[in-house]
């Protein structure tokens, strides 16, 4: 297969277009921060950001003026704070610079599943009595086609223009392998028209083929594969580096003050050259205390021909 290897700059420049619906996924684990920063660096505008759990990366993208609409299910900075740039925008009410479209986790996940499956809607056992169904016309109740007694809520497919995911490793053809907490990465990659995968390391085909069950997204779904070590920082990559909890704790103070936020974006994103510049700014040895001790899985035997 042909190589889909690209630089982060080129992948974002080629596949993320102003006005696109862009999904950045990763459930606390493997959040594609480096890609989000590159979107900011390239001054992308009018994006619809889709993310089940908008966190600091959403705060940065909104704060940098890249986002005109946010589709989400839970916005927050885990248990340590709030997203003040996002909140400032939304709490402006009718004067808000961003539109929001709100779901529950399974509601948005089900939209990815419907989008990935090419079906007109996905039923889920949620939303009876929830005001989310009142404020979101994409949450609808339909009768069961199989009996007169029951009804169910459904959500429509979501097919983002671009999905951006982060994973531990891939080959040059874009076969993506991931482990630990998997999030909605597989669903969103299949749902999107284009998929960019950023990985900690691009490895030889042999490595991927030694454990094919570990592949969460096959290469044919992936349009660009980018090697970007520590590209999920300050989130984490299982087995590679732990979550930078100190950074998460420090975010509220930055985000609360629009000037401080602007300054942070300038200093850490615009003034750094790609992700390598960001890592350089973090400094040598930064990841030492965040590097976990090895905890290897026992290899499985796939067998071979006699």
């Amino acid at each position: 297969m042909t190589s889909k290897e690209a630089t982060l700059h080129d992948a974002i420049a080629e596949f993320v277009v102003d006005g696109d619906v862009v999904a950045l996924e990763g459930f606390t684990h493997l959040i594609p921060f480096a890609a989000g920063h590159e979107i900011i660096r390239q001054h992308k505008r009018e994006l619809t950001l889709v993310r089940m759990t908008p966190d600091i990366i959403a705060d940065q993208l909104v704060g940098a003026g890249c986002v005109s609409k946010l589709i989400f299910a839970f916005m927050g900075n885990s248990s340590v704070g709030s997203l003040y740039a996002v909140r400032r925008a939304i709490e402006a009410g009718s004067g808000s610079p961003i539109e929001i479209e709100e779901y529950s986790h399974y509601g948005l996940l089900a939209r990815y599943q419907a989008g990935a499956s090419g079906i007109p809607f996905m039923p889920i056992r949620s939303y009876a009595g929830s005001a989310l169904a009142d404020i979101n016309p994409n949450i609808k109740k339909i009768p069961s086609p199989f009996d007169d007694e029951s009804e169910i809520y459904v959500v429509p497919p979501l097919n983002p223009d671009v999905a951006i995911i982060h994973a531990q490793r891939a080959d040059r053809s874009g076969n993506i392998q991931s482990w630990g907490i998997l999030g909605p990465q597989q669903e969103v990659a299949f749902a999107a028209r284009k998929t960019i995968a950023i990985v900690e390391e691009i490895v030889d085909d042999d490595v991927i083929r030694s454990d094919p069950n570990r592949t969460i997204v096959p290469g044919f779904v992936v349009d660009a594969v980018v090697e970007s070590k520590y590209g999920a920082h300050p989130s984490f990559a299982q087995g590679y580096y732990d979550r930078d909890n100190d950074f998460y704790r420090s975010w509220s103070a930055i985000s609360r003050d629009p000037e401080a936020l602007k300054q942070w974006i300038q200093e850490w994103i615009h003034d750094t050259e790609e992700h390598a510049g960001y890592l350089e700014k973090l400094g040598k040895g930064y990841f030492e205390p965040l590097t976990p001790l090895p905890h290897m899985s026992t290899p499985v035997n796939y067998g071979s021909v006699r």
Partner: protein
Amino acid sequence: MISATQTDDTPTSTQATFTASELLTVVSCRLLQGKRRVFAGIGLPTLAVALAQKSSSPDIEQVYESGVCGAHPPRLPETIADASLATGAEAILTMPVLFGYVLQGGWIDVGFLGAAQIDRFGSLNTSVIGPWEEPIVRLPGSGGAVEVMSNSHEVFVVLRRHNRTSFVNELDFCTSPSLRAARLAAPKVPTRGLGVSTVITDLGVLTADDTGELCLSSVHEGVTVEQVQAATGWPLKLMDQITVTKAPTAEELRLLREDIDPTRVYLR
């Protein structure tokens, strides 16, 4: 004054001091007795399950929203998707399996939820203070709370501050409806379980009656029934018997402080 029935065996004056977090954790832990599989986020619920595992309910299992089942973390996790939850876990499920098969499939006995506002039947608001379109305070939103409410066999709600701001007659926004609200709004949509059965607060415990209405069933030591009623934004009904919460035992406090959360990540 309505006098509360003292059921505590030990004299109150000799008890060790404890924080509100420790009390809420211990009370939650005791209420988990006999339960098998708990869906809980990070924070007090995690501590309550950990304490239950080490004391009254060694077989109790916790399922995390990140898909981790049977976690054996070497350190206390900081988020529901902490690396330490994954290492050495019994299973890590994909999201469609977690939401589709585990939650919707009816595998969860008790779901733990928090909220900014709760109403008299246990509907929860985690979305917004003020109108949704013109919010005064934008809150995180549902996350998986709507799914936990719709699919768990019962739901425990932990609220650190029992006051009229949280215990309201009418929610600003009904994110996760009570069983009653769900049935009223959409009677033909399938429901499961009891909805909110129990609310644990810094003043006491509310328990749902046969109609699903949350009624005062116990007060913490030093708290009066009138005090709880005054802190509740609807005319709070009382259970026939109102007990006084049994204070945390020395052993419960030791387990929490020395074994489970020695660096006090959650025991704030």
